[in-house]
Every structure is written in C-alpha cells, then in structure tokens.
C-alpha cells in the first residue's frame, strides 16, 4: 500500500496546462509553428523534419501540489501525514494532474507554384488528465467516522487518457498583403483510450432515525458512473509484451479506432506594426467502434447491516446464509454492466490567439517605408505582445494568458521570452531559441525556467525541441 502511495505521489509530482506551447506559438522561424497555427506567416520555401527528431514535446504538471509540498526535506519537521492531509483539504476537485507527450515521426512542407504552402506529417500523442477526487481522497484518508451525514461526491471522479497517432495534411495561403490563412485536416488513429467523465452520485453514512432498522444507513444515492474504454480490453487477452507491442503498432498504422478533425488559423496585420493571430486546433472527434468496453453502474442502494431473524432450528440444522445473501443483494442492487456500444469522443479543442506590436529594425533588409508593401506589416526584429490559450477539458476550459517578447538577434538566431499565468502558477517564465545554421534549423523551448533550479518545486514543466531542414525563400 505504501509503495502504491509512493508511486501515486511521485506520478502526481511529475505529471502542465499540458499542450500549451506558448513559447513556440508565433515563432515563424520554426516549421512546427504550422501545427499551432496553420495560418501562420511562412518564410521558407520548403521544410523537412528530421524523422523522429523534428519535435519532441513533453509537458507534465499539476495544479494543486508539487513533489516538494509532500516530500520536501526542509519541512520534514512537520509530519508527512500532516502535510498530505493538509494538501488533500487545500486542493479542490477542480485541481488536476496532466501529462502530454508528442513525438513527431515525419513532418514536411513545400511552397507550390500556385503559392499555396502544403504541409503534412505524422505524430504520436499521449494525453492524460486526472482531476483530483477530493471527497474520495478524504474518505480514503480519514474514513467515514467523522463524516456522518456528509455526502461524499462520487461525481468528482473525472479522468481521460489517450494514446493516438495523428496523420495530418494542411494548406497555407497568403491572401493579399494583410492576411494569411490556413487549414489542416487530421486523421486520428486511436491506439488506446480511457475515459470516465460525467459521473454523478453520492455516498453518505446517515444516522438512522426511529424508522431505521440499524444505527446507520450507508447509502449510494443517484449513482450513475461509467468508464469507457477502447483498445484496452483486447490487450488484456494478449499473452506477452511483444504481442501487445505488435498490436499497438498495428493500430498506430491506421488499424485503431479512427477519427477526423480540423485545425484552422489566421494571421492578420491590423496595422504595419500590429499583428493578430488566432487558431483553433483539434476540432474533431474519434469514433470508437472496435474493441470497445464500457462499464456502467447505476444505483440507489442503502445498506443497513445484517438482520438476524433467529429461525427455529432443529437437529443441527444450519441457519440462514445471511452474509452470502447480503453479498448477493449488493451484487444485484449495485450492478456493474459491461456494454459494447460504440461511442464518439470529442477531442480536447484548443484555442490560441495573440496580438503583437512589432518594433525595432526591419529584418528583411528594407527600411521602415517599404513602397512595395504599403499595407502589410514590415518584419521587425522585435515584438511584444499577448497570447491567449484555452483547452476544453471535462470540467470546463483551462485557460492561460501569456505576455511575450520576441527578438531576432541576427539572421540565424532568434529568441522569445514568455511570462505565463495559468492554473498552475502566476510566475511561469519560458524561453525559446531557434537557430538556423545554413539549411539546418534547431529549436528548443521550455517554460517554468524558475523552477528548473529545483524541479521538485515545479508544478508544471514543458519542453519542446526539434531539428529540421529548412530551405528559405530567395
């Protein structure tokens, strides 16, 4: 039990708003920016991601607790059990733990003769979110003795986990001087999916009244809980890990449950110095039809204990099987049904938006007055602006706001610094660096830099890096 608890706490420690790539967003020097805004401005003629290395993304985080909060050595004078208990009560059921990992397998793009920039690729994604079920945590940690008549909310259980491969192809076009738009179509192949949301119900131990048969009434009230799984039941039947791996690989190659979705985005130069962008990502759904198992429990049930009826017995005759009868009653009254119905899973849609003021010296070798481009913006070597990000999660959107400063130091080197306020922290500083060495493009971005001096105190850490071949326009 202690080992289980240790791993759970350790996991909580390492598992950001996941998927917010606030440092990369808007960095036009990086081809992967197309995945964050299909309507970004592009400077290259073509790009090819180095297979498996073009984007490695990891984001883990918690909104309520850090490893240091629990395992900190300097606060060890206080009993660890007191710290855990305090945290359980301090956190709310809206606190969450998330982890997102992406690995790009292939990424490519080219400017066609009709001035359309086509791009496509394949990436693998693992996405996990788990909301903290505060009432259940209290019940497990404290028991029910001090919580007579308290309604433990079982609806706080909310979690999803997805492992999928995404095949995507998109198009980007500059329309006129001011506007660039883009659209990306995505085909999702789900390898495994797990979802338990929209649960409801209460567990309560009430003190019985005059009509109650026993001291208490232990009640499950209006319980309606479900766990939807896809791609998991059949794996339990596989005999060894190599069979599981080959099965998962098959699903990665479009053999899983399929889904479709879209990304749209735009960039608009409001004035010569002010640029706005916006994108909507993963507007789509996965249709789970194969290897689907849904476990569902719906009940209203009250347990009163065991009633002895003292039957008249003769000749060593056994009495009634009260305990077995009770077990049968619980199984009958609290049934867990297994359903095999297909279900549709809406993907966590993300929204990005930004507005930037560009200043400094022009980067295209021109002057402030470019007579060839009277209406569009002039690329400058610095910009400052605001970004907005949201992702739709089971319990509503998770939001983040970012203040950023971008600077191009030289034609081969640019950097971006961000300050983000989100569910985890109000002191998230991020830094991104992109370098173009000849045709070789390298980038790295990380946030929560202040926390790197002690990751144990970090509530979220996000890191992206990758290598591309980029061929700039003449």
């Amino acid at each position, binding site marked *: 039990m202690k080992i289980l608890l240790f791993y759970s706490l350790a996991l909580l420690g390492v598992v950001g708003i996941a998927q917010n790539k606030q440092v990369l967003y808007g960095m036009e020097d990086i081809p992967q920016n197309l995945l964050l805004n299909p309507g970004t401005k592009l400077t290259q003629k073509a790009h090819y991601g180095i297979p498996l290395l073009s984007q490695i993304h990891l984001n883990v985080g918690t909104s309520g607790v850090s490893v*240091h909060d629990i395992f900190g050595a300097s606060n060890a004078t206080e009993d660890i059990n007191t710290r855990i208990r305090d945290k359980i009560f301090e956190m709310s059921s809206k606190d969450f733990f998330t982890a997102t990992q992406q690995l790009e397998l292939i990424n490519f793009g080219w400017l066609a003769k009709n001035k359309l920039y086509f791009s496509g690729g394949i990436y693998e994604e693992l996405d996990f979110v788990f909301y903290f079920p505060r009432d259940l945590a209290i019940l497990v940690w404290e*028991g029910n003795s*001090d919580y007579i008549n308290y309604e433990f909310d079982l609806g706080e259980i909310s979690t999803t986990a997805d492992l999928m491969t995404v095949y995507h192809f998109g198009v980007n076009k500059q329309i006129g001087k001011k506007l660039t738009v883009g659209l990306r179509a995505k085909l999702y192949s789900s390898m495994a999916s797990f979802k338990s949301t929209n649960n409801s119900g209460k567990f309560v131990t009430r003190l019985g009244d005059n009509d109650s048969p026993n001291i208490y009434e*232990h009640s499950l009230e209006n319980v309606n809980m479900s766990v939807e799984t896809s791609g998991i039941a059949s794996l339990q039947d596989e005999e060894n890990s190599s069979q599981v791996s080959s099965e998962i690989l098959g699903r990665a190659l479009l053999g899983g449950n399929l889904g479709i979705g879209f990304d749209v985005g735009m960039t608009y130069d409001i004035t010569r110095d002010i640029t706005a962008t916006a994108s909507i990502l993963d507007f789509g759904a996965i249709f789970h039809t194969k290897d689907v198992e849904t476990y569902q429990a719906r009940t209203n049930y009250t347990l009163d204990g065991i009633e002895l009826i003292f039957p008249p017995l003769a000749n060593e005759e056994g009495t009634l099987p009260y305990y077995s009868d009770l077990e049968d009653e619980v199984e009958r009254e609290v049934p867990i049904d297994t359903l095999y119905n297909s279900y549709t899973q809406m993907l966590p849609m993300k929204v990005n938006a930004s507005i930037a003021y560009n200043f400094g010296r022009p980067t295209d070798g021109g002057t402030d007055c470019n007579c060839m481009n009277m209406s569009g913006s002039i690329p400058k070597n610095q910009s400052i602006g605001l970004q907005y990000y949201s992702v739709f999660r089971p319990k509503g959107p998770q939001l983040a706001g970012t203040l950023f400063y971008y600077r191009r130091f030289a034609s081969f080197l640019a950097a971006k610094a961000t300050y983000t306020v989100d569910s985890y922290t109000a002191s998230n500083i991020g830094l991104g660096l992109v370098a173009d060495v000849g045709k070789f493009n390298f980038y790295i971005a990380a946030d929560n830099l202040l926390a790197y001096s002690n990751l144990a105190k970090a509530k979220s850490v996000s890191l992206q890096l990758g290598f591309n071949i980029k061929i700039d326009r003449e």
Partner: protein
Amino acid sequence: MKTNLSPVVAGFLLFFVFVSCIKDTDFDQVDNVDLTPTIDLDLIYFNLSASDFYDPATSTSVLTVSDTTELRFLNDIEVQRNLKRAEFYFKFTNSIEREFQADFQFLTPQNDTTYTAQTVVAQGTVSNPIITEFIENVEGADIVDLTQASKVIVSVTIPSSNANLEGALNLQSKVTYYVEL
C-alpha cells in the same frame, strides 16, 4: 549563412542540464506515511418478540435463542494485517419485563472460539422500553484473536418466560474500525 552555432546550442542545453535538479527532498519519508482511516459500519440488528421465548405448541419456555452469521471480511488477510482496533457498539431496546443475557461468540471457520463478549440487558416494560448500551473495545492481542474469526454466534438468554409475556427486544449495532495502512 555560415555561422558556428554549436556554442549557443550547447550553452542552452547545458543550462538545462546544470540548473535542473531535484533538491531539498527526502523520499524516505514515504516510510512514515500512515493511512489511518476510521470507518463506521453497521453490524447486525434484530427484533425479538416476547413470544419467541415461549413455545405454545409444547407449552414450554425457550430460554435461549441463538443465531449465527458469517462475517467473512473479518479474517481477511488485509484486515488481519491492518486492523488495529475495533470498537463494537450495541444498543438494546427492551420492553419485556425480563433482564436478558446477550452473548457474542466469535468463531474460526473450524468453529474454534477466538473471542467472546457478553452483557446484561436491563428489563423494561411495554409502556417504558429501556435502552441498554454496551461498548466492547478490542485492541492489542485481542484484535489478533478477533480477526481469526469468520462468524459470530449471537445468543440471547431469558431467565424465565411464559405465554403472557409481552414486549420486544431490539438490537442495533455498529463497529468503528481503526485501520492503519
């Protein structure tokens, strides 16, 4: 553009390697984590009528009635390991004009007695039922004995009875389990 960028890239990577660390933590503290929930659960209940202590067919008193139920969770290996204390609470409501002796005998699956508890229930009247509360606290070596048991025999003994005896004996009970995981 020919530029040697390796120092920049290497510098950035080294920044993460050198500055990122996990410090001021003591994971050995996990050994001190004790989950100590206290759980209240209903146990048994019954309603005995005065007539249950007299057999009209044979016109004889039935001085002792008893019944048995399994409590299979009690000798579960996890319960044996983690249960530190159990506090039984019995609440008798008696409207029969007799005192009663109540016995609780805990048995292993092989019917060996591992733990017993008994109490006297005060007599009441039909117009004035009397409540007798009885608390049995089990801990230490006794809890080891108790968690060897998987069933309990409940016996209720009346000193005397007749066909005219009226009233009822009601029992409600719960157990508070003190668990340490």
